[in-house]
């Protein structure tokens, strides 16, 4: 299952007073006064995260910077040699395309859902369904697409009978475009969940003001609507990118373990480490993944902060 999608994967009640709300007590207003009794109750949490997240990450990086057997350069450098670099490019390309396509389609989907008024339940249906689909992933999703777009899939056959031979044209469910299409299944709903609040944040008065001073609808979108939505759009795209980049199970199941995606390569190196002595390469690939995700997530958080500027309290 793809993990990042939980960041916004399910609509939560609006957050208020994140820091310094009325609940904060006097005793903690200065950094200097952290008596043991104040910090003690927090220790289990920090110790747990330290043991199971920080220590493993540090170990990961230490091992990644050691050389592999028989080499002088660190595994981090080795991990970027030709064959591994190509699998990074493959992963990045899949993440990029599924993120951009997912963002565009998801945005249009969200816009359409927010503009249709007539059956009022449609919007609830769409958001409710997106909450489920954005969290979908892993083995069941792979199975669903094997059944529909695999060589013997339902949709493949329907297309075939209508004169479109997908597999004759070189399409494979476990190859580049196949994986992109499958990933769209959780990317589009995730984008919808990110964008709906942003679209709802566009106030009707802005539109009316633009129309009053003579703007056409397309001018309003070009000059007001889209610029306001841009940080949300870019942030959403980054989130989708991270989501696809760390996904593993779906691609693994689609390809029966033979994919060139980085996570699948990591598994290959780690399972073979006693024979090949290249275990450190697995650590290095994983370390590179962490670094890339770190960049993407920082970008996402910055853009999200910027997007919130227009959402008045």
């Amino acid at each position, binding site marked *: 299952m793809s993990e990042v999608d939980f960041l916004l994967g399910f609509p939560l009640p609006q957050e208020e007073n994140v820091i310094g709300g009325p609940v904060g007590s006097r005793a903690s207003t200065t950094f200097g006064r952290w008596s043991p009794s104040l910090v003690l109750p927090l220790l289990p949490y920090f110790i747990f995260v330290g043991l199971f997240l920080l220590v493993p990450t540090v170990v990961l990086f230490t091992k990644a910077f050691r050389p592999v057997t028989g080499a002088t350069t660190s595994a981090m450098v080795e991990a970027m040699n030709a064959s591994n670099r190509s699998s990074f490019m493959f992963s990045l390309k899949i993440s990029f395309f599924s993120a951009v396509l997912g963002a565009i*389609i998801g945005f249009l989907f969200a816009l359409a859902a927010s503009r249709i008024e007539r059956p009022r339940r449609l919007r609830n249906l769409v958001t409710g369904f997106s909450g489920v689909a954005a969290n979908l992933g892993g*083995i069941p999703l792979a199975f669903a697409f094997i059944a529909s777009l695999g060589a013997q899939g339902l949709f493949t056959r329907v297309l075939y009978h209508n004169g479109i031979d997908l597999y004759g044209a070189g399409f494979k469910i476990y190859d580049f475009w196949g994986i992109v299409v499958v990933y769209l299944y959780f990317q589009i709903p995730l984008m919808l969940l990110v964008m709906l609040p942003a679209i709802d944040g566009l106030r009707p008065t802005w539109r009316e003001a633009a129309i009053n001073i003579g703007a056409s609808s397309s001018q309003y979108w070009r000059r007001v609507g889209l610029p306001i939505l841009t940080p949300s759009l870019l942030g959403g795209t980054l989130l989708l990118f991270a989501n696809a980049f760390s996904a593993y199970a779906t691609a693994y199941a689609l390809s029966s373990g033979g994919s060139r995606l980085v996570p699948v390569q990591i598994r290959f190196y780690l399972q073979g480490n006693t024979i090949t002595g290249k275990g450190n390469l697995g650590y290095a690939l994983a370390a590179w993944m962490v670094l890339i995700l770190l960049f993407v*997530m920082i970008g996402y958080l910055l853009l999200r902060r910027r997007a919130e500027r227009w959402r008045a309290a």
Partner: protein
Amino acid sequence: MNKRRTTWEWPVIIVVGAFFIVPMLAMTRFAMQRVPMSLLGRKTIFSRWTIRGLMNTISDDKFQPAFFMSVRLGIVTVLLVLALLLPTVLWLHLRAMRWKILAEIVSLLAYVVPPIALVVGVSGAYRDTVPWIVSSNYGLVPLYAILCLPFAYRTLDVGFAALDLNTLVNASRSLGASWQQTFRKVLIPNLRTAILTTSFLAFAVVIGEFAISSLLLKRTLPTYMLEAQGREPQGAMGVALLLLVLTTVLFMALGRIQKKSPTSSSQEIRITP
């Protein structure tokens, strides 16, 4: 005022909707109809529907251990996450506001370390010193708790932020309730929605988790499904469908609970007698 015309909206909804529905239909057909794809046509569309494949797989003696393992892992993870986070977030809101930023950043780290890197790091760090984590089935629990941390923290954080915590706690304490009683009779009832949301999401994550359990060679429901696909594709598809239905039901129940939640409607505070 210009009248709003709906021109492109419906086509978008319908096309995207079809993209979401077709794989589910295909999956259902694959799981329950014993007609080869090449023979499927207008005449055979309703023939030979059966749940025998699913039944065969469910009665397979490897299915039940895997299924119940996943369920047990889910329950234990939910308990661990709640036991770890409830007191922490309570304390952060009550007395240690300044530490909230740090706690939140730490919780978000799990998004930066993908599951595959997490399992690689954990096995690298503890394989030689604490082999239990890598070898035992329940060694998965702390790793799953880490996966759940970001959304669990956020959900509980929002839940606590919606309460007037100091008043609640002070009122309860000044009426002579112990901390334990305050927790059980005042806080937990008021945080019901946040706790249920966290539990459902965490359970859904664990029951579908594949990357970690497969790398550590554990027999959970998802690893079983992939393995069974080779032997009995139809049954494996049926089990996957079942898992999907189960998850969807969980989420629908969750949506219903959230709609009724006190945090989203008003500031009412409930105290069980």
